[in-house]
């Protein structure tokens, strides 16, 4: 398992320069499932600022789709629209073919959508265990036995490596641990679609190398479809079968990561972004 990870890590490094080998990842996990999420002409304006401008895309069941783009491109805003945290200015979002715009975040969570926050937002006065338990209890409608909930919580804590920290309070955790808590809480709601907002940011390369197989395993073992915002291109290349590139609120690319690095608009967006940064 470990050696395979390292092997892929190497391959990803190569992929940046020479895109050919990376296509292996998408091939092993063909995303032929039904459409799970679809956005149609989705827009969000903040006054005159078009943070999300008429974006359309689909995410099929079982895919891992990356969302990249320079700072301020509208990635987090897009997630907020999809998960019901912000009202859209216009457009439509379908989840499992049903329109979901206007539904509350808790309703969307019950339908099977969970998100993490770019700036981690744990419940500070609750232990790690209670943070995850709350998600396990309320993430799905219908009463579940306490035993079921507890075993769910323990499984999530183990999978995210938080089990030894179960009794800690979030303020005493390190940033990478808090990021894991953010993921653990989202996972405990048993989502069909997981929206990850920069969960790898702030992790060192070694921690990222450890996190990637975990994200892949969520997708493979638990059949969770993942939409993930990430700045770390290498990480995105390593796990995503497809990426969406945003720039100034617009979707400028939708396709294989290997093609993105050769796309003129993407290259320009990134060079332009770097000049600002």
């Amino acid at each position: 398992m470990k050696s395979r990870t390292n092997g892929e890590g190497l391959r990803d490094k190569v992929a940046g320069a020479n895109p050919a080998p990376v296509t292996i990842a998408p091939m092993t996990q063909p995303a032929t499932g039904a459409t799970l999420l679809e956005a149609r002409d989705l827009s969000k304006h903040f006054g005159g600022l078009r943070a999300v401008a008429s974006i359309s895309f689909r995410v099929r069941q079982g895919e891992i789709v990356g969302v990249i783009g320079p700072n301020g491109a509208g990635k987090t805003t897009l997630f907020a629209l999809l998960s019901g945290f912000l009202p859209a200015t216009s457009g439509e979002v379908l989840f499992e073919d049903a329109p979901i715009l206007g539904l509350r975040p808790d309703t969307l969570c019950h339908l099977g959508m969970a998100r993490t926050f770019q700036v981690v937002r744990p419940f500070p006065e609750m232990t790690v265990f209670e943070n995850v338990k709350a998600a396990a209890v309320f993430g799905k409608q219908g009463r579940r036995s306490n035993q079921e909930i507890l075993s769910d919580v323990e499984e999530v804590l183990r999978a995210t490596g938080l089990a030894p920290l179960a009794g800690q309070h979030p303020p005493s955790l390190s940033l990478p641990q808090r990021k894991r808590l953010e993921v653990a809480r989202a996972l405990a709601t048993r989502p069909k679609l997981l929206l990850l907002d920069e969960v790898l940011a702030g992790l060192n390369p070694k921690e990222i190398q450890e996190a990637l197989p975990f994200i892949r395993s969520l997708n493979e073992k638990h059949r969770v479809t993942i939409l993930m915002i990430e700045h770390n291109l290498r990480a995105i290349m390593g796990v995503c079968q497809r990426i969406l590139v945003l720039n100034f609120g617009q979707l400028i690319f939708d396709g294989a990561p290997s093609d993105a690095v050769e796309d003129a608009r993407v290259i320009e967006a990134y060079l332009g972004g770097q000049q600002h940064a």
Partner: protein
Amino acid sequence: MGNLTRAFVSERTAGCIVTGFVLALPFLLSFNPYYTSVFVSALILGAVAIAWNLLAGVCGQVSFGHAAFFGIGAYTSAVLVTKWGFSPYLGLVAGGVFGGLGSLIIGIPAFRLRGPYFALAILGFAEVMKLLALNLTWLTEGSLGIMNIAPLPPLEVGSLKIDFYASRTTNYYVVALLMFAVYLVVYFLRRSNLGLAMSAVHGDDETAAGIGVNVFRTKAIALTVSATCTGVMGAFYAHYVRFLSPDTAFDGYWSVMPIVASLFGGMSALIGPMAGALVITGLDEFVFKRFFETGHKLFFGLLLAVVIVWAPTGLLGNRVGKRSEGDKR
């Protein structure tokens, strides 16, 4: 970090200690009727403070107007008993029910507001209720107030007759029982899944929604339970003092002092507000009043400032904790 060296007791232990103290107090005061009546008021305040703290300390929604629910409970029982001949015991129940219903009237619109705006909306509601009590004279006798409210009827247990009319001590133990009942409601509510939702809403209501918590419903339940308990205490108050006017039933005291008691005793411990009510009453009665007969109320403000600056978590703040799940893993 200094907390680790402090004595740390569980909520349950702290609850038992405070309850034990409450039960023993009349003996310590040698059943002096004056002091007993002072501490009846302290227990009424303590119970309201525990209820207030369910909303504020557990669910994170501060109210500046619990006098509204206290007054509604008091008037409900007083009117039902004096005008329609209900039993005062039924009046206590009705006081709670109406207190809870009243909280829904204001809660449904007010929960759209956040933080101080929510707190102020409830304060406004308390003022409106006071005005209603003043102006619905056919029901409330307006500013004249309702007089000669029946005390709780004597209870006969076998040959033993427990009289509430003459004895302050029996009243004391009834209010102690009510206080304890309110405490148990809050205690078990916090341990339940609903309590988990309230803590989550307290922590971050947006994230709570993100993991499937119905935030509005959770807040509404916290408010309704809090207001119901407050209404029962108001109803008890009506039958204890036996006279109600809009100014006494909806007195700002019932909005402000539960906050003071909670800050004093510590909001993170469920029994903290009760401890706070006992301590401030004790200090006021045995210290401030002795030395400063006229200006003793001023000291609450001063004392509160001291507490907020030097011990923001209150007396029991970091020393009492709920047994957090996952601790011993």
